[in-house]
Protein backbone atom coordinates (compact mmCIF):
# COMPACT_ATOMS: atom_id res chain seq x y z
CA UNK A 1 0.00 0.00 0.00
CA UNK A 2 1.33 3.41 -0.91
CA UNK A 3 0.28 5.89 1.70
CA UNK A 4 1.57 8.99 3.46
CA UNK A 5 0.55 9.55 7.07
CA UNK A 6 1.73 12.33 9.35
CA UNK A 7 0.53 12.29 12.93
CA UNK A 8 1.67 14.78 15.52
CA UNK A 9 -0.43 14.72 18.65
CA UNK A 10 0.92 17.37 20.98
CA UNK A 11 -0.26 16.69 24.52
CA UNK A 12 -2.57 13.69 24.16
CA UNK A 13 -5.81 14.30 26.08
CA UNK A 14 -7.37 12.26 28.87
CA UNK A 15 -4.03 11.19 30.29
CA UNK A 16 -2.30 12.78 33.23
CA UNK A 17 0.45 15.12 32.10
CA UNK A 18 1.98 15.82 28.73
CA UNK A 19 2.91 13.22 26.13
CA UNK A 20 3.24 13.49 22.35
CA UNK A 21 2.71 10.99 19.56
CA UNK A 22 4.72 11.45 16.35
CA UNK A 23 4.32 9.22 13.29
CA UNK A 24 5.60 9.80 9.75
CA UNK A 25 4.78 7.24 7.08
CA UNK A 26 5.96 7.82 3.51
CA UNK A 27 4.79 5.64 0.63
CA UNK A 28 3.63 3.06 3.12
CA UNK A 29 6.93 2.84 4.96
CA UNK A 30 7.30 4.00 8.57
CA UNK A 31 10.00 6.68 8.81
CA UNK A 32 9.34 7.83 12.35
CA UNK A 33 7.21 6.50 15.19
CA UNK A 34 7.75 7.92 18.66
CA UNK A 35 6.18 8.23 22.07
CA UNK A 36 7.65 11.45 23.50
CA UNK A 37 7.42 12.90 26.98
CA UNK A 38 8.33 16.60 27.09
CA UNK A 39 7.59 17.20 30.79
CA UNK A 40 10.17 19.02 32.89
CA UNK A 41 11.72 16.79 35.57
CA UNK A 42 10.35 17.46 39.08
CA UNK A 43 13.35 16.66 41.29
CA UNK A 44 11.36 15.29 44.22
CA UNK A 45 14.40 13.32 45.36
CA UNK A 46 16.20 16.62 45.96
CA UNK A 47 13.23 18.05 47.83
CA UNK A 48 13.29 15.39 50.54
CA UNK A 49 16.99 15.87 51.35
CA UNK A 50 17.53 17.54 54.71
CA UNK A 51 13.95 16.80 55.80
CA UNK A 52 12.98 14.99 59.01
CA UNK A 53 12.06 11.32 58.72
CA UNK A 54 8.48 11.97 59.75
CA UNK A 55 7.94 14.66 57.09
CA UNK A 56 8.75 12.44 54.11
CA UNK A 57 5.36 10.86 53.51
CA UNK A 58 3.61 14.22 53.79
CA UNK A 59 5.89 15.77 51.18
CA UNK A 60 5.81 12.91 48.69
CA UNK A 61 2.04 12.49 48.94
CA UNK A 62 1.92 15.75 46.97
CA UNK A 63 3.71 14.18 44.02
CA UNK A 64 0.38 12.98 42.74
CA UNK A 65 -3.28 13.87 43.19
CA UNK A 66 -4.40 10.39 42.16
CA UNK A 67 -1.77 8.07 43.67
CA UNK A 68 -1.15 10.14 46.80
CA UNK A 69 -2.01 7.20 49.08
CA UNK A 70 0.42 4.91 47.25
CA UNK A 71 3.20 7.49 47.45
CA UNK A 72 2.52 8.05 51.17
CA UNK A 73 2.41 4.34 51.93
CA UNK A 74 5.52 3.38 49.97
CA UNK A 75 7.39 6.28 51.57
CA UNK A 76 6.40 5.32 55.07
CA UNK A 77 7.33 1.68 54.41
CA UNK A 78 10.74 2.75 53.10
CA UNK A 79 11.26 5.12 56.07
CA UNK A 80 10.34 2.34 58.49
CA UNK A 81 12.67 -0.06 56.69
CA UNK A 82 15.50 2.51 56.84
CA UNK A 83 15.02 3.28 60.53
CA UNK A 84 14.29 -0.31 61.69
CA UNK A 85 10.78 0.63 62.86
CA UNK A 86 8.34 -2.24 63.44
CA UNK A 87 4.59 -1.85 63.09
CA UNK A 88 1.62 -3.75 64.54
CA UNK A 89 -0.64 -6.11 62.60
CA UNK A 90 -3.49 -3.63 63.05
CA UNK A 91 -1.41 -0.86 61.45
CA UNK A 92 -0.50 -3.11 58.54
CA UNK A 93 -4.14 -4.11 58.04
CA UNK A 94 -5.46 -0.55 58.21
CA UNK A 95 -2.84 0.66 55.76
CA UNK A 96 -3.78 -2.16 53.37
CA UNK A 97 -7.43 -1.14 53.72
CA UNK A 98 -6.41 2.44 52.86
CA UNK A 99 -4.41 1.22 49.89
CA UNK A 100 -7.34 -0.80 48.50
CA UNK A 101 -9.46 2.36 48.54
CA UNK A 102 -7.04 4.10 46.20
CA UNK A 103 -7.13 1.22 43.73
CA UNK A 104 -10.91 1.56 43.50
CA UNK A 105 -10.79 5.39 43.32
CA UNK A 106 -8.21 5.42 40.60
CA UNK A 107 -9.48 2.52 38.50
CA UNK A 108 -13.05 3.81 38.45
CA UNK A 109 -11.74 7.23 37.52
CA UNK A 110 -9.63 5.83 34.71
CA UNK A 111 -12.09 3.37 33.22
CA UNK A 112 -15.18 5.46 33.89
CA UNK A 113 -14.06 8.97 33.05
CA UNK A 114 -11.13 8.53 30.68
CA UNK A 115 -11.48 5.22 28.79
CA UNK A 116 -15.28 4.96 28.53
CA UNK A 117 -15.55 8.02 26.25
CA UNK A 118 -13.32 6.21 23.71
CA UNK A 119 -15.55 3.16 23.81
CA UNK A 120 -18.70 5.25 23.44
CA UNK A 121 -17.11 7.54 20.80
CA UNK A 122 -17.61 10.61 22.99
CA UNK A 123 -15.02 13.36 23.52
CA UNK A 124 -15.31 13.21 27.31
CA UNK A 125 -17.48 12.00 30.16
CA UNK A 126 -19.45 15.28 30.22
CA UNK A 127 -21.51 14.61 27.06
CA UNK A 128 -21.83 10.97 28.15
CA UNK A 129 -24.13 12.06 30.97
CA UNK A 130 -26.83 12.82 28.41
CA UNK A 131 -26.08 9.75 26.24
CA UNK A 132 -25.79 7.14 29.01
CA UNK A 133 -27.04 8.75 32.23
CA UNK A 134 -27.50 5.56 34.25
CA UNK A 135 -24.03 4.25 33.42
CA UNK A 136 -22.34 7.55 34.29
CA UNK A 137 -24.30 7.86 37.53
CA UNK A 138 -23.28 4.33 38.52
CA UNK A 139 -19.63 5.16 37.81
CA UNK A 140 -19.86 8.36 39.84
CA UNK A 141 -21.53 6.49 42.71
CA UNK A 142 -18.68 3.95 42.78
CA UNK A 143 -16.12 6.75 42.65
CA UNK A 144 -17.91 8.56 45.49
CA UNK A 145 -17.93 5.47 47.72
CA UNK A 146 -14.21 4.97 47.02
CA UNK A 147 -13.52 8.58 47.95
CA UNK A 148 -15.46 8.25 51.21
CA UNK A 149 -13.56 5.05 51.93
CA UNK A 150 -10.23 6.88 51.61
CA UNK A 151 -11.53 9.67 53.81
CA UNK A 152 -12.49 7.24 56.61
CA UNK A 153 -9.06 5.58 56.77
CA UNK A 154 -6.68 8.26 55.44
CA UNK A 155 -8.35 11.29 57.04
CA UNK A 156 -9.14 12.88 53.71
CA UNK A 157 -9.76 11.82 50.12
CA UNK A 158 -6.31 12.71 48.80
CA UNK A 159 -3.01 13.33 50.58
CA UNK A 160 -3.43 11.14 53.72
CA UNK A 161 -2.98 12.72 57.14
CA UNK A 162 -3.49 9.78 59.50
CA UNK A 163 -0.31 7.78 58.95
CA UNK A 164 2.95 8.34 60.81
CA UNK A 165 6.14 6.27 60.97
CA UNK A 166 5.34 3.41 63.34
CA UNK A 167 1.55 3.55 63.10
CA UNK A 168 -1.40 5.91 62.89
CA UNK A 169 -2.06 9.31 64.44
CA UNK A 170 -5.76 8.53 64.25
CA UNK A 171 -7.69 5.37 63.41
CA UNK A 172 -11.28 5.03 62.26
CA UNK A 173 -13.96 4.01 64.78
CA UNK A 174 -15.71 0.65 64.73
CA UNK A 175 -18.92 2.36 63.62
CA UNK A 176 -17.13 4.06 60.73
CA UNK A 177 -15.66 0.74 59.61
CA UNK A 178 -19.02 -1.05 59.85
CA UNK A 179 -20.72 1.73 57.87
CA UNK A 180 -17.97 1.54 55.28
CA UNK A 181 -18.36 -2.23 55.08
CA UNK A 182 -22.10 -1.83 54.45
CA UNK A 183 -21.39 0.69 51.69
CA UNK A 184 -18.94 -1.75 50.12
CA UNK A 185 -21.43 -4.62 50.27
CA UNK A 186 -23.93 -2.37 48.50
CA UNK A 187 -21.30 -1.53 45.88
CA UNK A 188 -20.90 -5.09 44.61
CA UNK A 189 -23.97 -4.96 42.33
CA UNK A 190 -23.09 -1.53 40.82
CA UNK A 191 -19.57 -2.79 40.08
CA UNK A 192 -21.00 -5.71 38.13
CA UNK A 193 -23.23 -3.23 36.29
CA UNK A 194 -20.16 -1.16 35.35
CA UNK A 195 -18.48 -4.33 34.07
CA UNK A 196 -21.58 -5.16 32.00
CA UNK A 197 -21.67 -1.66 30.51
CA UNK A 198 -18.01 -1.87 29.51
CA UNK A 199 -18.58 -5.38 28.16
CA UNK A 200 -21.35 -4.04 25.91
CA UNK A 201 -18.80 -1.82 24.13
CA UNK A 202 -15.67 -3.94 24.64
CA UNK A 203 -15.78 -4.82 20.95
CA UNK A 204 -14.42 -1.31 20.35
CA UNK A 205 -11.16 -2.21 22.08
CA UNK A 206 -8.57 -2.66 19.31
CA UNK A 207 -7.41 -6.24 18.68
CA UNK A 208 -3.69 -5.87 19.36
CA UNK A 209 -1.21 -8.11 21.14
CA UNK A 210 2.52 -8.06 21.69
CA UNK A 211 4.49 -10.65 23.66
CA UNK A 212 5.53 -8.66 26.77
CA UNK A 213 7.37 -9.06 30.07
CA UNK A 214 5.09 -8.13 32.98
CA UNK A 215 6.49 -6.95 36.31
CA UNK A 216 4.60 -6.61 39.58
CA UNK A 217 4.70 -7.54 43.23
CA UNK A 218 3.99 -11.18 44.05
CA UNK A 219 3.39 -12.82 47.41
CA UNK A 220 2.49 -16.27 48.71
CA UNK A 221 -1.14 -17.20 48.05
CA UNK A 222 -2.21 -13.60 47.61
CA UNK A 223 -3.20 -11.20 44.83
CA UNK A 224 -0.93 -8.57 46.32
CA UNK A 225 -0.81 -4.80 46.07
CA UNK A 226 1.26 -4.17 49.17
CA UNK A 227 3.45 -7.06 50.32
CA UNK A 228 5.94 -9.44 48.72
CA UNK A 229 8.80 -9.49 46.24
CA UNK A 230 9.20 -8.23 42.69
CA UNK A 231 8.22 -10.78 40.05
CA UNK A 232 8.68 -10.95 36.29
CA UNK A 233 6.29 -12.97 34.15
CA UNK A 234 9.52 -14.33 32.62
CA UNK A 235 10.07 -16.18 35.88
CA UNK A 236 12.61 -14.21 37.92
CA UNK A 237 11.91 -12.77 41.34
CA UNK A 238 13.87 -10.10 43.16
CA UNK A 239 13.70 -8.72 46.69
CA UNK A 240 12.28 -5.20 46.89
CA UNK A 241 15.61 -3.91 48.23
CA UNK A 242 17.10 -4.66 44.78
CA UNK A 243 14.52 -2.69 42.81
CA UNK A 244 17.17 -0.60 41.07
CA UNK A 245 18.40 -3.83 39.41
CA UNK A 246 14.86 -4.38 38.11
CA UNK A 247 14.13 -0.89 36.78
CA UNK A 248 17.63 -0.27 35.38
CA UNK A 249 16.57 3.29 34.62
CA UNK A 250 18.12 4.97 31.60
CA UNK A 251 17.62 8.06 29.47
CA UNK A 252 16.70 8.39 25.79
CA UNK A 253 16.78 11.42 23.50
CA UNK A 254 13.05 11.44 22.74
CA UNK A 255 11.87 11.75 26.35
CA UNK A 256 12.56 13.80 29.45
CA UNK A 257 11.19 10.91 31.52
CA UNK A 258 13.48 7.99 32.34
CA UNK A 259 12.83 4.60 30.75
CA UNK A 260 13.25 1.16 32.32
CA UNK A 261 14.01 -2.42 31.30
CA UNK A 262 14.75 -5.69 33.08
CA UNK A 263 15.00 -9.01 31.21
CA UNK A 264 13.97 -7.70 27.79
CA UNK A 265 14.07 -4.36 25.97
CA UNK A 266 11.07 -3.20 27.99
CA UNK A 267 8.49 -4.37 30.50
CA UNK A 268 4.95 -3.45 31.50
CA UNK A 269 3.67 -2.60 34.97
CA UNK A 270 0.03 -2.12 36.00
CA UNK A 271 -3.18 -4.03 36.53
CA UNK A 272 -2.52 -6.45 33.68
CA UNK A 273 0.97 -7.17 35.06
CA UNK A 274 -0.53 -7.91 38.47
CA UNK A 275 -3.17 -10.11 36.89
CA UNK A 276 -0.67 -12.00 34.77
CA UNK A 277 1.53 -12.67 37.81
CA UNK A 278 -1.20 -13.31 40.40
CA UNK A 279 -4.44 -14.26 38.61
CA UNK A 280 -4.91 -17.51 40.53
CA UNK A 281 -5.38 -15.52 43.76
CA UNK A 282 -7.93 -12.95 42.55
CA UNK A 283 -11.19 -12.91 44.55
CA UNK A 284 -14.25 -14.81 43.25
CA UNK A 285 -15.94 -11.62 42.05
CA UNK A 286 -12.70 -10.44 40.45
CA UNK A 287 -12.49 -13.77 38.62
CA UNK A 288 -16.12 -13.51 37.54
CA UNK A 289 -15.45 -10.09 36.02
CA UNK A 290 -12.26 -11.30 34.30
CA UNK A 291 -14.19 -14.29 32.91
CA UNK A 292 -16.93 -12.02 31.53
CA UNK A 293 -14.27 -10.51 29.25
CA UNK A 294 -12.33 -13.71 28.62
CA UNK A 295 -9.32 -12.23 30.44
CA UNK A 296 -6.87 -15.03 31.22
CA UNK A 297 -3.39 -15.22 32.71
CA UNK A 298 -0.80 -14.67 29.99
CA UNK A 299 -2.84 -12.04 28.13
CA UNK A 300 -0.56 -9.75 26.10
CA UNK A 301 -3.03 -7.13 24.88
CA UNK A 302 -2.28 -3.79 26.54
CA UNK A 303 -5.92 -2.77 26.04
CA UNK A 304 -6.91 -5.53 28.49
CA UNK A 305 -5.21 -3.51 31.23
CA UNK A 306 -8.49 -1.61 31.45
CA UNK A 307 -10.35 -4.88 31.95
CA UNK A 308 -7.87 -6.05 34.59
CA UNK A 309 -8.57 -2.76 36.38
CA UNK A 310 -12.31 -3.53 36.44
CA UNK A 311 -11.58 -7.03 37.81
CA UNK A 312 -9.38 -5.42 40.48
CA UNK A 313 -12.21 -3.04 41.46
CA UNK A 314 -14.28 -6.12 42.29
CA UNK A 315 -11.32 -7.79 44.02
CA UNK A 316 -10.43 -4.90 46.34
CA UNK A 317 -14.05 -4.35 47.29
CA UNK A 318 -14.52 -8.00 48.18
CA UNK A 319 -11.20 -8.19 50.03
CA UNK A 320 -11.90 -5.00 51.96
CA UNK A 321 -15.19 -6.42 53.22
CA UNK A 322 -13.24 -9.42 54.58
CA UNK A 323 -10.43 -7.25 55.95
CA UNK A 324 -12.82 -5.07 57.94
CA UNK A 325 -14.22 -8.24 59.54
CA UNK A 326 -10.69 -9.37 60.38
CA UNK A 327 -9.78 -6.00 61.95
CA UNK A 328 -12.98 -5.76 63.97
CA UNK A 329 -12.96 -9.39 65.08
CA UNK A 330 -9.49 -8.90 66.50
CA UNK A 331 -10.78 -5.71 68.17
CA UNK A 332 -9.80 -2.15 67.28
CA UNK A 333 -7.18 -0.79 69.65
CA UNK A 334 -5.84 2.74 70.02
CA UNK A 335 -2.13 2.02 69.85
CA UNK A 336 0.45 4.47 71.09
CA UNK A 337 3.23 4.91 68.54
CA UNK A 338 6.45 3.93 70.32
CA UNK A 339 9.50 3.87 68.10
CA UNK A 340 13.23 3.86 68.51
CA UNK A 341 14.49 4.93 65.08
CA UNK A 342 18.07 4.11 64.10
CA UNK A 343 19.80 5.68 61.09
CA UNK A 344 20.11 3.68 57.90
CA UNK A 345 18.97 3.12 54.33
CA UNK A 346 15.65 1.51 53.40
CA UNK A 347 13.60 0.46 50.41
CA UNK A 348 9.96 -0.32 49.69
CA UNK A 349 7.54 -1.12 46.91
CA UNK A 350 3.78 -0.98 46.63
CA UNK A 351 1.49 -1.40 43.67
CA UNK A 352 0.16 2.04 42.75
CA UNK A 353 -3.03 1.69 40.69
CA UNK A 354 -0.98 2.14 37.50
CA UNK A 355 1.82 -0.22 38.49
CA UNK A 356 4.66 -1.03 40.81
CA UNK A 357 6.13 1.98 42.63
CA UNK A 358 9.53 2.07 44.34
CA UNK A 359 10.95 4.46 46.96
CA UNK A 360 14.26 4.38 48.87
CA UNK A 361 15.65 6.75 51.49
CA UNK A 362 18.70 7.15 53.71
CA UNK A 363 18.81 8.97 57.06
CA UNK A 364 21.73 10.24 59.13
CA UNK A 365 22.19 10.07 62.92
CA UNK A 366 19.94 13.13 63.33
CA UNK A 367 17.28 11.25 61.33
CA UNK A 368 17.48 13.79 58.52
CA UNK A 369 17.09 12.46 55.00
CA UNK A 370 20.39 12.45 53.11
CA UNK A 371 19.31 10.61 49.96
CA UNK A 372 16.14 9.53 48.19
CA UNK A 373 15.29 7.63 45.03
CA UNK A 374 11.87 7.02 43.53
CA UNK A 375 10.73 5.17 40.43
CA UNK A 376 7.15 5.57 39.28
CA UNK A 377 5.24 2.99 37.23
CA UNK A 378 4.64 5.19 34.21
CA UNK A 379 8.38 5.61 33.71
CA UNK A 380 8.65 1.82 33.79
CA UNK A 381 6.05 1.67 31.00
CA UNK A 382 7.43 4.25 28.56
CA UNK A 383 9.77 1.85 26.71
CA UNK A 384 6.95 -0.67 26.47
CA UNK A 385 4.60 1.92 24.98
CA UNK A 386 7.26 2.76 22.38
CA UNK A 387 7.68 -0.91 21.43
CA UNK A 388 3.90 -1.34 21.25
CA UNK A 389 3.80 1.64 18.88
CA UNK A 390 6.46 0.09 16.65
CA UNK A 391 4.39 -3.09 16.27
CA UNK A 392 1.07 -1.27 16.11
CA UNK A 393 1.79 1.29 13.39
CA UNK A 394 2.40 -1.18 10.51
CA UNK A 395 -0.54 -3.31 11.67
CA UNK A 396 -3.01 -0.41 11.91
CA UNK A 397 -1.83 2.03 9.21
CA UNK A 398 -4.58 0.74 6.91
CA UNK A 399 -7.01 2.67 9.15
CA UNK A 400 -5.61 5.92 7.74
CA UNK A 401 -4.42 8.94 9.67
CA UNK A 402 -7.43 9.51 11.93
CA UNK A 403 -7.99 5.85 12.69
CA UNK A 404 -4.34 5.20 13.44
CA UNK A 405 -4.06 8.30 15.61
CA UNK A 406 -7.10 7.34 17.64
CA UNK A 407 -5.87 3.76 18.11
CA UNK A 408 -2.48 5.03 19.29
CA UNK A 409 -4.10 7.46 21.71
CA UNK A 410 -6.25 4.63 23.08
CA UNK A 411 -3.12 2.53 23.53
CA UNK A 412 -1.44 5.21 25.61
CA UNK A 413 -4.59 5.70 27.71
CA UNK A 414 -4.85 1.97 28.32
CA UNK A 415 -1.63 2.20 30.35
CA UNK A 416 -3.31 4.79 32.60
CA UNK A 417 -0.16 6.89 32.46
CA UNK A 418 0.69 9.42 35.11
CA UNK A 419 3.19 11.57 33.30
CA UNK A 420 3.18 14.59 35.52
CA UNK A 421 1.01 15.21 38.44
CA UNK A 422 2.39 17.98 40.52
CA UNK A 423 0.86 21.08 39.07
CA UNK A 424 -2.58 22.00 37.90
CA UNK A 425 -3.08 25.76 38.14
CA UNK A 426 -6.11 27.39 36.57
CA UNK A 427 -5.52 29.15 33.27
CA UNK A 428 -8.43 31.38 32.37
CA UNK A 429 -9.54 34.21 30.11
CA UNK A 430 -12.33 36.44 31.27
CA UNK A 431 -15.40 36.53 29.07
CA UNK A 432 -15.71 40.10 27.74
Amino acid at each position, binding site marked *: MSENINIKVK*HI*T*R*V*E*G*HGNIVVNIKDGSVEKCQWQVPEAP*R*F*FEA*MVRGRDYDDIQT*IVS*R*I*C*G*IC*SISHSLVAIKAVEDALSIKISQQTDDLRLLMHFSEQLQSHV*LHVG*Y*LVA*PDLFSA*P*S*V*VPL*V*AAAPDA*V*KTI*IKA*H*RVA*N*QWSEVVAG*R*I*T*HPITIVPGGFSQIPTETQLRNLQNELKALVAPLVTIAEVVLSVAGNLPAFERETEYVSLANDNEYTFYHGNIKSSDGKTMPVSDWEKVANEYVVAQSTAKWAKWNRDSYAAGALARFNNNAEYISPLGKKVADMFGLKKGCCSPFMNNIAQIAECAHVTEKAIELIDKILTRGLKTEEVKINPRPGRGHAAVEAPRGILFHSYEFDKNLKCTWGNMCIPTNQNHANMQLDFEKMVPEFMHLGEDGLRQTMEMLIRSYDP*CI*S*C*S*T*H*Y*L*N*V*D*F*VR
Partner: protein
Amino acid sequence: MKKETIVLGLGNPLMADEGIGLKIVHLLMSACGENARADFVDAGTGGMSVLHYIANRKKAVIVDCALMNTEPGTIKRFTPDQVKTVKELAHLSLHETDILKVIELSKQLGECPGQVIFFGIEPQTVEQRIGLSDLLTKKLDDYVATISKELVA
Protein backbone atom coordinates in the same frame (compact mmCIF):
# COMPACT_ATOMS: atom_id res chain seq x y z
CA MET B 1 -22.56 16.43 59.24
CA LYS B 2 -21.79 18.27 56.08
CA LYS B 3 -22.20 22.05 56.10
CA GLU B 4 -24.05 24.09 53.47
CA THR B 5 -20.90 25.88 52.36
CA ILE B 6 -17.58 24.33 51.45
CA VAL B 7 -14.33 26.19 50.96
CA LEU B 8 -11.86 24.21 48.86
CA GLY B 9 -8.20 25.04 48.58
CA LEU B 10 -6.56 23.58 45.49
CA GLY B 11 -2.89 23.40 44.64
CA ASN B 12 0.46 21.85 45.33
CA PRO B 13 2.70 23.03 48.17
CA LEU B 14 5.77 21.64 46.39
CA MET B 15 5.37 24.13 43.52
CA ALA B 16 5.86 27.49 45.26
CA ASP B 17 2.86 29.82 44.60
CA GLU B 18 0.89 26.90 43.18
CA GLY B 19 0.22 26.09 46.85
CA ILE B 20 -1.45 29.44 47.63
CA GLY B 21 -4.97 27.95 47.73
CA LEU B 22 -3.96 25.40 50.35
CA LYS B 23 -2.18 27.97 52.52
CA ILE B 24 -5.23 30.24 52.52
CA VAL B 25 -7.61 27.41 53.39
CA HIS B 26 -5.40 26.35 56.32
CA LEU B 27 -5.36 29.96 57.58
CA LEU B 28 -9.14 30.23 57.21
CA MET B 29 -9.54 26.94 59.06
CA SER B 30 -7.50 28.21 62.02
CA ALA B 31 -9.24 31.61 61.98
CA CYS B 32 -12.77 30.22 61.77
CA GLY B 33 -12.42 27.08 63.91
CA GLU B 34 -14.49 23.91 64.01
CA ASN B 35 -17.78 25.68 64.56
CA ALA B 36 -17.58 27.73 61.40
CA ARG B 37 -20.51 27.83 59.02
CA ALA B 38 -18.37 26.25 56.33
CA ASP B 39 -16.31 23.09 55.84
CA PHE B 40 -12.72 23.86 54.86
CA VAL B 41 -10.80 21.33 52.80
CA ASP B 42 -7.23 21.16 51.54
CA ALA B 43 -8.07 19.21 48.39
CA GLY B 44 -4.55 19.28 46.93
CA THR B 45 -4.50 18.37 43.28
CA GLY B 46 -7.21 15.76 43.69
CA GLY B 47 -9.04 16.95 40.54
CA MET B 48 -12.18 14.87 40.29
CA SER B 49 -12.60 14.70 44.07
CA VAL B 50 -13.93 18.26 43.78
CA LEU B 51 -17.05 16.78 42.17
CA HIS B 52 -17.77 14.86 45.38
CA TYR B 53 -16.76 17.61 47.80
CA ILE B 54 -19.18 20.15 46.31
CA ALA B 55 -22.08 17.74 45.65
CA ASN B 56 -25.40 18.93 47.06
CA ARG B 57 -24.00 21.91 48.97
CA LYS B 58 -25.57 25.36 48.72
CA LYS B 59 -22.33 27.19 48.11
CA ALA B 60 -18.81 26.27 47.04
CA VAL B 61 -15.87 28.65 47.32
CA ILE B 62 -12.79 27.49 45.43
CA VAL B 63 -9.43 29.11 46.10
CA ASP B 64 -6.69 28.45 43.59
CA CYS B 65 -3.62 29.79 41.91
CA ALA B 66 -4.75 31.20 38.54
CA LEU B 67 -3.07 32.60 35.45
CA MET B 68 -5.32 35.56 34.70
CA ASN B 69 -3.00 38.00 32.90
CA THR B 70 -2.96 40.28 35.93
CA GLU B 71 -0.20 41.55 38.21
CA PRO B 72 1.36 38.83 40.39
CA GLY B 73 -0.36 38.78 43.77
CA THR B 74 -3.73 39.97 42.40
CA ILE B 75 -6.77 38.23 43.88
CA LYS B 76 -9.90 38.11 41.74
CA ARG B 77 -13.36 36.82 42.53
CA PHE B 78 -15.25 35.27 39.64
CA THR B 79 -17.97 32.78 38.83
CA PRO B 80 -17.65 29.90 36.34
CA ASP B 81 -19.70 31.71 33.70
CA GLN B 82 -17.41 34.76 33.83
CA VAL B 83 -14.44 32.83 32.50
CA LYS B 84 -13.56 30.41 29.78
CA THR B 85 -10.72 28.04 30.27
CA VAL B 86 -7.75 28.34 28.01
CA LYS B 87 -6.27 25.06 29.06
CA GLU B 88 -4.85 23.20 26.12
CA LEU B 89 -5.87 19.94 27.74
CA ALA B 90 -9.61 19.87 27.54
CA HIS B 91 -11.71 16.78 28.16
CA LEU B 92 -10.71 15.84 31.66
CA SER B 93 -7.20 14.73 31.97
CA LEU B 94 -6.82 13.98 35.63
CA HIS B 95 -4.13 16.04 37.21
CA GLU B 96 -4.72 18.70 34.67
CA THR B 97 -8.39 18.35 35.44
CA ASP B 98 -10.18 21.34 34.16
CA ILE B 99 -12.09 22.48 37.19
CA LEU B 100 -14.64 24.26 35.00
CA LYS B 101 -15.46 20.94 33.35
CA VAL B 102 -15.96 19.40 36.79
CA ILE B 103 -18.47 22.17 37.58
CA GLU B 104 -20.20 21.46 34.26
CA LEU B 105 -20.40 17.74 35.11
CA SER B 106 -21.77 18.59 38.55
CA LYS B 107 -24.49 20.72 36.91
CA GLN B 108 -25.40 17.94 34.51
CA LEU B 109 -25.77 15.57 37.44
CA GLY B 110 -28.09 18.04 39.15
CA GLU B 111 -25.97 18.27 42.29
CA CYS B 112 -24.05 21.51 41.74
CA PRO B 113 -24.28 24.18 44.45
CA GLY B 114 -26.43 27.19 43.49
CA GLN B 115 -23.42 29.41 44.08
CA VAL B 116 -19.93 28.53 42.91
CA ILE B 117 -17.38 31.27 43.56
CA PHE B 118 -13.72 31.19 42.55
CA PHE B 119 -10.96 33.22 44.11
CA GLY B 120 -8.00 33.18 41.76
CA ILE B 121 -4.61 34.43 42.89
CA GLU B 122 -2.06 35.34 40.24
CA PRO B 123 1.24 33.65 41.09
CA GLN B 124 4.64 35.25 41.02
CA THR B 125 6.57 31.98 40.89
CA VAL B 126 5.54 28.44 39.94
CA GLU B 127 8.56 26.18 40.26
CA GLN B 128 9.72 23.12 42.17
CA ARG B 129 10.21 24.39 45.68
CA ILE B 130 8.41 24.36 49.01
CA GLY B 131 7.05 27.73 50.15
CA LEU B 132 5.29 30.75 48.66
CA SER B 133 7.00 33.80 47.12
CA ASP B 134 7.55 36.79 49.45
CA LEU B 135 5.07 38.80 47.42
CA LEU B 136 2.19 36.38 48.06
CA THR B 137 3.26 35.71 51.65
CA LYS B 138 2.96 39.41 52.46
CA LYS B 139 -0.56 39.49 51.06
CA LEU B 140 -1.89 36.45 52.94
CA ASP B 141 -3.81 38.55 55.51
CA ASP B 142 -5.49 40.47 52.69
CA TYR B 143 -6.47 37.26 50.92
CA VAL B 144 -7.94 35.78 54.10
CA ALA B 145 -9.87 39.00 54.80
CA THR B 146 -11.24 39.13 51.24
CA ILE B 147 -12.42 35.52 51.28
CA SER B 148 -13.82 35.78 54.83
CA LYS B 149 -16.19 38.50 53.58
CA GLU B 150 -17.56 36.00 51.08
CA LEU B 151 -18.31 33.60 53.91
CA VAL B 152 -20.42 36.01 55.94
CA ALA B 153 -22.29 37.19 52.87
